[in-house]
């Protein structure tokens, strides 16, 4: 938080601010000292905020026309597409918006992994972020059920059946989730209710996420603690605001490409067939952003262990700040971690690809190796690297390697040039 006490200029402003210090908050947000070396990977926070607001607004509008009933849901979605003014646009923005949201969140998460943004003192920011990510997956899953197509129905069946793997209580839990003995109308109506709720929970967590961020301030590409405000910082407005807006515009080009030129490429044709509880589509695949976890689920031959492995792959991320024992944050100064980081990126991409392929033969074998490596990375490689890795020398400030000042700093500059 800024050290100086903010006093509004106008008398009215001062009167109001003494009663509700909202102008102090606005001042904090504009003056907020930000590391001046933030690169474009840091713009995804703003992009994600935009995605959340877009999903809430388009979702609110869709809910005005959608009917949450097993007999009417499918045709009400077609009604939105054909009859409602600009309904096609709003639905395509919402459906593709979910994919764009996940694209942005994966970049945001992998940025945090590369630059060690989850490390002390930012563990709570990271955990809040993971809670948001988990809620996003729940919202996306339930939203995908609402059009009541074949993929909606069978996706819902497979995912809710994950809970049937729980010993003793599994069956009662799935019956409770369904409100019946299979996915049916009661399931659809409760998913609609929860799908409407979750974005607001996410919004609340985003506020906490940003609040927690503003306590230590942003991490930065070289991952060092900086003095704030100082030569190493710029104010959030206008510097970061302009940078974020520019990045958002580029992001919107990608977004618009999907919405206007290939709005269904990320979906599945089967979801334009109305849900039929008697026939399972030949090849059920979740949406692309869930594929790596789906691959982990399928790569374990035992039902319960498969479900455990899938959830473990997610929750292992929550405890990441304590698995990575290295004190150095940024991968720039960790030559070995940097390589393992890219191995992990490749591993997750491979898992994603295997999740989309049938679970047999070579695909299954590769998925198993990739699953094993995923856990190896977090449980063995990261803790061991913390003590074994020879890290490079970290500069004392952002300015130092550029302007020089000491022998060690110029050495660091040379190393930085090579990187």
């Amino acid at each position, binding site marked *: 938080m800024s050290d100086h006490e903010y006093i509004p200029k106008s008398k009215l402003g001062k009167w109001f601010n003494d009663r509700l210090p909202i102008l102090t908050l606005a001042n904090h947000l504009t003056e907020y000292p930000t590391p001046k070396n933030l690169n474009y990977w840091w713009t995804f926070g703003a992009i994600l905020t935009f995605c959340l607001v877009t999903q809430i607004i388009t979702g609110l509008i869709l809910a005005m026309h959608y009917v949450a009933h097993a007999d009417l849901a499918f045709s009400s979605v077609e009604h939105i597409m054909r009859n409602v003014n600009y309904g096609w646009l709003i639905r395509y923005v919402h459906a593709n918006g979910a994919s764009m949201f996940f694209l942005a969140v994966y970049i945001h998460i992998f940025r945090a992994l590369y630059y060690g943004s989850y490390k002390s003192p930012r563990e709570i920011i990271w955990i809040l972020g993971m809670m948001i990510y988990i809620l996003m997956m729940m919202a996306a899953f339930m939203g995908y059920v609402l059009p009541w197509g074949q993929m909606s129905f069978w996706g819902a*069946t497979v995912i809710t059946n994950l809970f049937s793997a729980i010993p003793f209580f599994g069956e009662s839990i799935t019956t409770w989730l369904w*409100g019946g003995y*299979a996915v049916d109308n009661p399931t659809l109506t*409760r998913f609609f209710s929860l799908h409407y709720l979750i974005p607001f929970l996410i919004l609340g967590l985003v506020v906490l996420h940003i609040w927690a961020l503003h306590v230590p301030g942003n991490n930065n590409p070289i991952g060092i603690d900086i003095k704030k405000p100082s030569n190493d910082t710029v104010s959030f407005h206008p510097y970061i605001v302009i940078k974020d807006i520019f990045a958002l515009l580029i992001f919107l080009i990608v977004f618009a490409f999907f919405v206007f030129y290939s709005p269904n490429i990320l979906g599945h044709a089967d979801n334009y067939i109305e849900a039929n*509880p008697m026939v399972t589509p030949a090849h059920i695949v979740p949406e692309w952003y869930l594929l790596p976890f789906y691959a982990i689920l399928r790569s374990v031959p035992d039902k319960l262990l498969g479900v455990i492995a899938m959830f473990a792959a997610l929750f292992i991320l929550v405890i990441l700040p304590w698995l990575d024992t290295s004190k150095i944050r940024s991968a720039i100064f960790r030559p070995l971690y940097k390589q393992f980081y890219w191995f992990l990126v490749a591993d997750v991409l491979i898992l994603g690809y295997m999740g989309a392929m049938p679970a047999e033969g070579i695909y299954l074998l590769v998925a198993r190796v990739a699953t094993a490596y995923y856990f190896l990375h977090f449980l063995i490689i990261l803790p061991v690297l913390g003590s074994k890795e020879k890290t490079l020398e970290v500069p004392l400030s952002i300015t130092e390697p550029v302007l020089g000042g000491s022998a060690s700093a110029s050495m660091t500059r040379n190393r930085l040039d090579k990187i």
Partner: protein
Amino acid sequence: MSDKKVKRRDFIFTTSYALGAVGVGAAVWPLIDQMNPDASVKALASTEVDVSSVEPGQSITVLWRGKPVFIKRRTQEEIAKAREVDIKNLKHPEKDEDRAKNPEWLVMLGVCTHLGCVPLGDKGEYGGWFCPCHGSHYDTSGRIRKGPAPTNMEIPKYEFVNTNTIKIG
């Protein structure tokens, strides 16, 4: 706690918390239980099916409680194949005699016990069913033989009302 004497006040606190917890539990239970199957769902508990037109080797699928039920009239070969298996080698050992009281008729939930997909008939390595979702193979008795499913496909409660009618549920 050990060095402090338990006072009357501690007793009052403990009982208040306990009673408060019971009260909260009682208030929350209706909010949770409303999600369980309601009366209209439970009312659809049984279905009667006319099977007179099903020839040996054929299978029909009917919907019961929102789930597909396979009614398969098995051929002599299929019955023989199901009965000659040594059940000691099965993942979920069940005799075919216990699964199909009337050997000609196999009535079972058409729901894969892995994650709930509907398996395809006359497919798979054991001539029974094959689940396309995650590759579980079932034999002609609906028993799991290969793949991730943990148990055999479930046999619902059913009875022959007369020779042509099966009542499920």
